[in-house]
């Protein structure tokens, strides 16, 4: 990396994987990481949107898959780690709201809860586990490794009507905290962050009557999450950029 008068690009060469990368917060993260010179792979369910997003952001690696499906996890992990040559950062962002419109728990179909748990809790667990070897390898060679799980204030506060989503995010939040304790010795940090109420398709599904002007922009939240990731990475790895 050249220094001189150019502003330093601490994220250049970082290998980042993002789930749910074609809309809302995921797309904002993808844009900002790509802009910062990171190598980014993203996954989403819709093949057409994956292709279009990858085309609009040349150099990014788009793969089609659904983290809620067990049989998609290893193909996704293979494509992500293969195309990036390893993984330094995993962002479990893809989320499922549960019943739409939101419903009281007593009116929530079991299938809606199962889907929310599969996308918001089991999917991140499985994908993190499949990529744990890659993350640990990054940590071992000094690049650092971070898993960021996108949480919600609904993971902490029992909002009526948000039962499926809130329970699944609460599970993810606690999973993150335990994993962070267990993996810190390996040099892997696991973060759980609430990006706030944003103007995204998911929020529009949940609260259709919300005034978009009252909501945060996904770009603003993405900026905060990226700062949290950068802080959790060892500084020498950031300065060295790509050293694989």
């Amino acid at each position, binding site marked *: 990396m050249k220094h001189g008068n150019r502003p330093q690009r601490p994220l250049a060469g970082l290998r980042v994987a993002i789930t749910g990368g074609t809309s809302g917060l995921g797309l904002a993260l993808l844009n900002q990481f790509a802009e910062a010179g990171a190598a980014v792979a993203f996954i989403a369910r819709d093949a057409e949107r994956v292709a279009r997003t990858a085309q609009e952001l040349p150099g990014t690696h788009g*793969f*089609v898959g659904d983290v809620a499906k067990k049989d998609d996890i290893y193909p996704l992990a293979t*494509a992500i780690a293969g195309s990036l040559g390893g993984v330094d950062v995993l962002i479990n962002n893809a989320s499922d709201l549960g019943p739409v419109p939101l419903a009281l728990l007593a009116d929530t179909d079991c299938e809606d809860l199962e889907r929310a748990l599969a996308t918001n809790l089991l999917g991140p667990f499985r994908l993190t586990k499949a990529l744990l*070897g890659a993350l640990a390898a990054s940590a*071992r060679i000094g690049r650092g490794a971070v898993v960021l799980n996108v949480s919600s204030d609904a993971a902490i506060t029992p909002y009526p009507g948000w039962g499926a989503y809130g329970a699944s995010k609460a599970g993810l939040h606690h999973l993150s905290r335990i994993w962070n304790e267990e993996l810190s010795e390996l040099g892997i940090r696991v973060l759980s962050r609430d990006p706030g109420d944003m103007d995204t398709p998911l929020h529009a599904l949940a609260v259709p009557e919300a005034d978009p002007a009252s909501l945060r922009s996904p770009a603003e939240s993405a900026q905060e999450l990226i700062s949290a990731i950068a802080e959790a990475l060892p500084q020498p790895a950031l300065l060295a950029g790509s050293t694989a």
Partner: protein
Amino acid sequence: MLAAADEPVQRPKDAKLLTVDSAGRVRHRLRSDFVDLLQPGDLLIANDAATLPASLAGVHLPTAAPVELRLAGRASLRPSDIHRFSAVVFGNGDWRSRTEDRPLPPLLSPGDQLALGPLSAKVEAILAHPRLIRLTFDASPDAIWAGLARHGRPIQYAHLSAPLAPWDSWTRIANLPAAFEPPSAGFVLDWRLLGALGARGVCFATLTHAAGISSTGDPALDARLPFDEPYVIPAATVAAIERAKEEGGCIIAIGTTVVRALEHAAAGGALCAGEGVATNRIGRDTPLRVADAIPSGVHEVGTSHFELLRAFAPDDIVQAADHALNLLRYRTHEFGDSVFLERFRPPLTELPSRPV
């Protein structure tokens, strides 16, 4: 008699471990005692290659005949270097048939097109055997990664009771998808064991080596194994080796692929970090420059994996170990029992007692 392990369990609770120490003494132990064999200051090195779904079902378009391709070689581990592979081709059949019984593929010629699920490939060359080809995929690197990941299956074994799922073929530490068959000596590792190593003062490091096909079922091809295998050794691993050697620790290379990569990278004298392609064969006469001990699976006499063990100990000791393995019916293959072989160190000749 050795018995084939037929369940895809990576860490069976009753797994056995035959140890041969540096004086040639043979002992039977439980593999759960593995950590006890290591001393503070030792360095354990594993191959962290994830296993590619290297078996591709498809059709040879000129004849419309079904084929199974098993990817078997690649020039480097760079993410974009994914177009060209060598591959072993089988005719019709599936994982239940022993490879020895699989028919030849249709006669293959350079230029032939192969339809492999979402991928298409062209035969570039026949590599001096009707089953062995070089091929090129016709797509962008990302489309090839996606196609392999979606359509490929782990290479299967007829001795198993059920087909392997991808997760059966990845070690716990699987990193870069690079191996054609699992670096299965690494199945012994889980995160709890790595934690126990740390607590004991044993260091851990990795390299990534494209472990190749272990057997093709064809004697002429098997005689050419192992094929060339690309690898990458991180600078941090070389530094850890130098540190351990300086401080008198042993270098314990988990499996034949780690030995092959380390000894290839050290062939010029000093061990070099970075990329390489292992073309070496390790056997009876190979001087070992890096590895002091090898935990490995149980292999049958005559296989390239077994022959590699002869670099660690003289024939009579290797023979005694093989006899002990057979006597207690150790289980062979990927999900079988293990051996732990220390490099033989002849006892110092006793000095004649000083005349009084």
